[in-house]
């Protein structure tokens, strides 16, 4: 129908290696990119600022995490702490007078160096124990941030981001901040798409599948696990800085608590491990569906269909969010990316559903 081809048949290596081998996919990417670029012109500032902008930034965070969890297979339950390191160091660098462009890179490097320490546990253990170790490190980082006044500005303090400009464009308007976030998430997505085709990406996949076996064929697990943690933490740190400067604009330690780490893992799993489109879909789903469903319940209660106490209504998002995670793991463990892929495969050969695709 849209694709107008019965399966993908390559005659040259270049076409087989292309990021989007099917023309319809290229059109799709181009249309989505155009819509994203034009969004500030046709979306109201409410939708742009409180739905689309956080969605993009959290997508970048989910993509950074899925590089580690999906590609390298290292579990990480302290990613919010990595983002917090990025956010706080970028704010302090910017306050110190460092240009914002350098502050972003500095934030990424700080997060990457400290995040590699998380990886030290990965060199020793894996699986459940790695979950516990990263979880413990999340608590440690949280405690340091809260209890060192030089970082957080004192307990219970809110740290406002200074006003900065990126490439001579001041980040005071919503659309400027939106374009910065869009640029960053596009960069992360393109990096992720390409890293799968490099020797680095293939080494990470080998380690994910079996680290001993990878060592046998000459992939050094020590080196590549640390590199995976470094790369992923760098992207996570910059994402944290973008989150602080473009969305929150005033950070507190609670914005990067353990629950946020779980939320990030939920985004990755609901989206589908190791998939780019899964990162976007998962972040959108986990962020927006509880809000939408809660508004639906509140609306139905307001229409008088049933009565809901305000206390229950306050807990509905939590229930929906938990039920979403459970439901996806039970019924579609490969996540939204798999659902998207099934639909795409169906239309790729439509109407000849039994042909090769």
């Amino acid at each position, binding site marked *: 129908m849209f694709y107008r081809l019965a399966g993908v048949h390559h005659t040259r290596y270049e076409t087989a290696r292309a990021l989007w081998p099917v023309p319809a996919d290229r059109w799709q990417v181009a249309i989505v990119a155009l819509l994203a670029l034009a969004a500030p012109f046709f979306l109201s500032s409410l939708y742009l600022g409180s739905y689309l902008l956080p969605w993009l930034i959290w997508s970048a965070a989910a993509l950074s995490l899925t590089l580690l969890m999906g590609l390298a297979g290292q579990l990480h339950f302290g990613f919010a702490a990595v983002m917090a390191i990025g956010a706080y160091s970028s704010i302090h660098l910017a306050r110190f007078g460092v240009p914002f462009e350098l502050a972003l890179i500095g934030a990424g490097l700080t997060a990457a160096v400290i995040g590699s320490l998380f990886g030290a546990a990965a060199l020793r253990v894996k699986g459940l124990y790695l979950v516990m170790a990263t979880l413990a490190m999340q608590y440690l980082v949280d405690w340091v941030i809260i209890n060192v006044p030089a970082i957080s500005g004192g307990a219970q303090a809110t740290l406002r981001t200074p006003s900065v400009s990126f490439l001579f464009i001041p980040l005071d308007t919503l659309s400027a901040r939106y374009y910065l976030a869009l640029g960053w998430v596009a960069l992360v997505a393109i990096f992720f798409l390409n890293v799968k085709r490099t020797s680095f990406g293939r080494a990470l996949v080998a380690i994910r599948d079996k680290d001993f076996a990878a060592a046998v064929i000459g992939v050094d697990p020590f080196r590549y696990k640390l590199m995976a943690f470094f790369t992923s933490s760098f992207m996570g740190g910059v994402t944290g800085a973008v989150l602080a400067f473009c969305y929150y604009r005033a950070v507190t330690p609670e914005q990067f608590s353990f629950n946020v780490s779980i939320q990030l893992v939920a985004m990755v799993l609901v989206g589908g491990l190791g998939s780019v489109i899964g990162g976007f879909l998962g972040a959108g789903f986990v962020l927006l569906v509880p809000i939408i469903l809660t508004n639906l319940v509140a609306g139905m209660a307001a229409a008088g269909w049933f009565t809901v106490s305000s206390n*229950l209504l306050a807990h509905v998002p939590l*229930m929906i969010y*938990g039920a979403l*995670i459970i439901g996806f793991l039970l019924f579609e463990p490969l996540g939204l990316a798999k659902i998207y892929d099934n639909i795409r495969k169906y239309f790729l050969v439509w109407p000849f559903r039994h042909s090769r695709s």
Partner: protein
Amino acid sequence: MAYFAELVVNGALTGLMYSLAALGFVLIYKSAGVPNLAQGAVVMIAGYVVWLLFSLGLSLFLAVILGAAIMFALGLLTERFLLRRMVGQPVIMIVMLTLGLEILLRGIGPGFLGAAPKSLDLGIGLAPIIIGDVFINRAYLVGGVVAVVMIAAALLFFRTRLGTKLRAVSDDHVSSWAVGISVEKAIGISWGLAGISAVAAGVLWGSVQGVDWTLSTLLFPAVAVVILGGIDSIWGVLIGGLLVGILGSVIPGYLDAVVGGGTRDVVTSLIILLTIMIRPYGIFGREDIERI
């Protein structure tokens, strides 16, 4: 010196109450190999169930017994409808499923029964027991005694016919099937038993700090207990609980004044981290040897 002794004694008793929450974790991990990160929320739900039965007018004894029956059934249902479908999935899926369950329960409990803390009065009394110069919290003492009794009961249970079956299942699922043990039933029973131990933890912690969602944060010290003691060892729960409790009471007792509070979580995190870096399988745990 009296201050130190007080910190040690009360810390040890708190630690024993942590082990009550950790016991359920170990029971499930031992038989099913499932890390149940929802155990903190299960403790919270158990507290809510007993509080509900108690406030409906039942006597405390009846409320606890009925609560234990309900939690046993809930444990069986969780295993049957959630975890059994996850057999053979990678550990990240199972960890995340239990975390999803944790979030769901944390919404359901306070959502339907009210978020304000509920007081659960066991009639223990508030006056501390004074031995020499040491003040001992009466509620913690009762909690510690109950914890020791529960752990002893768990140890004895593994000597019974059913307990032997459970031990066989924890050794090897396939060989247990081969000799005619129903692995599904054994895993279900261990989930039910974890529910019963959650009732004990929920009632005791609920009487100390009130029943509300904060009971689910018991997960963190409970995880430290099982990591330190060994994730599949009942003895580990006892020793690990004592160590986590004492360290988590003595170190903050001296350091909190210096650094401004909150060191208990740091001690707990450090216990988890150091154990994993030095001896991942804990004090009494069984070391898994991985074969390609």
